């Protein structure tokens, strides 16, 4: 399983899977992330690319209520990338 320690822009977490949710409006990036996580084991890391600015508030909320860890969430130009470690 990927190591999740460093979270800075220079050392992003190593993702086990990447989800391209750009162009999708919330809550679709979250719904797609939920689908992607289903096939991953606890502890796995999912990277989520999104263009809807709602991801800045929705991803932390979703992680909190579902027991996932949000390792980092960073802007990339007009888009965002978030790394989520699946909870147990």
């Amino acid at each position, binding site marked *: 399983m990927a190591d999740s320690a460093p979270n800075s822009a220079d050392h992003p977490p190593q993702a086990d899977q990447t989800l391209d949710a750009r*162009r999708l409006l*919330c*809550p*679709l990036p979250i*719904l797609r992330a939920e689908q992607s996580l289903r096939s991953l084991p606890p502890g796995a890391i999912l990277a989520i690319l999104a263009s809807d*600015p709602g991801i800045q508030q*929705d991803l932390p909320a979703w992680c*909190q209520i*579902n027991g996932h860890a949000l390792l980092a969430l960073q802007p990339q130009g007009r888009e965002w990338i978030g790394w989520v470690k699946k909870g147990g």
Partner: protein
Amino acid sequence: MDNHHTPISALGLLSGGLDSMLAARLLMDQGIHVECVNFHTGFCIQSHTSAIRNPEPGAKPPRHDALHAAQLLGIKLHMVDIAEDYVRIVTDPKHGYGSNLNPCLDCKIFMVRKAWQLKEELGMHFLFTGEVLGQRPMSQRRENLPHIEREAGVEGWLLRPLCAAKLKATEPEKRGWVDRARLKGFHGRGRRAQMELAQQLGLHDYPSPAGGCCFLTDENYSRKLQDLWHSRSERRYTMDDILLLKAGRHLRPAAHFKVIIGRDETENNFLSGFREQRWLLQAQGIPGPVLLVEGTPNEEDLTLACRLTARFGQGRHADVVTIRISHDHQEQLRQVAPLPASAIPDSWYI
């Protein structure tokens, strides 16, 4: 499910608005284990408008109300995508539409039925909603409430904590799972009682009750959807269709094609994501909108679309503007004179 050794649990339909939050809290305060479900239909207004348009200076990023409400309440939220199944509710509602293309009764019945299925899968005891008697003209009328339960197949098992005192007792109340005396008898369109209860319960961060939650209740949106159906001679839509109806100015110069014009940079970017199977136009070297053409335009139509692109950009007073047309992975340039405002009839605006 009569086993009293199992903690009583309830599944609620959570829009993220104040009413559904209050309903959840009233049950949680009785020691009931509450989880909620939120359905994605594709028509949810939520934060879409602000996600598509340039943000106001200093504005917070948009957020999904139900997620935020679940976070505040500290409960599990099941987010379920019903957009595909929802098409038949929108295109062929058994109980008809409200004042626009909102099939509120059919929608409520459909969601309650779906929620019941999930409740069964989760092994929970009953369903609840944040409905208030008489608050909404279609789905919350007294005569419609029993009808919704009956048609959804959940008669007696749908509790409405905010107005339960004004309704017949439900099974959870009759079985002593829920103390009816601690439920409310709210009714009507006023919001004061709910806001006072929110204050008492310490709920402060909830969305403004003014806005609707569904684009189908919006007159402008409904007109654009109606136009789409009319142009196709049938009631059908794709997810891309309903997203595009949320963005830009829509003009239909002729029955066989229409144009969508971005109104700011964020909207231009949004529209650019939908270029597949459409024509994407933008002025060369002059700031201006992205314009998408949908339908079956001929060369003359594309020239008109170019002139419209020039008209809505900063080159509107120039003699000639060069427009780049992208379609099917190919590009061409066309030089046109901007269309004068007087040549755009009001009837083109959808």
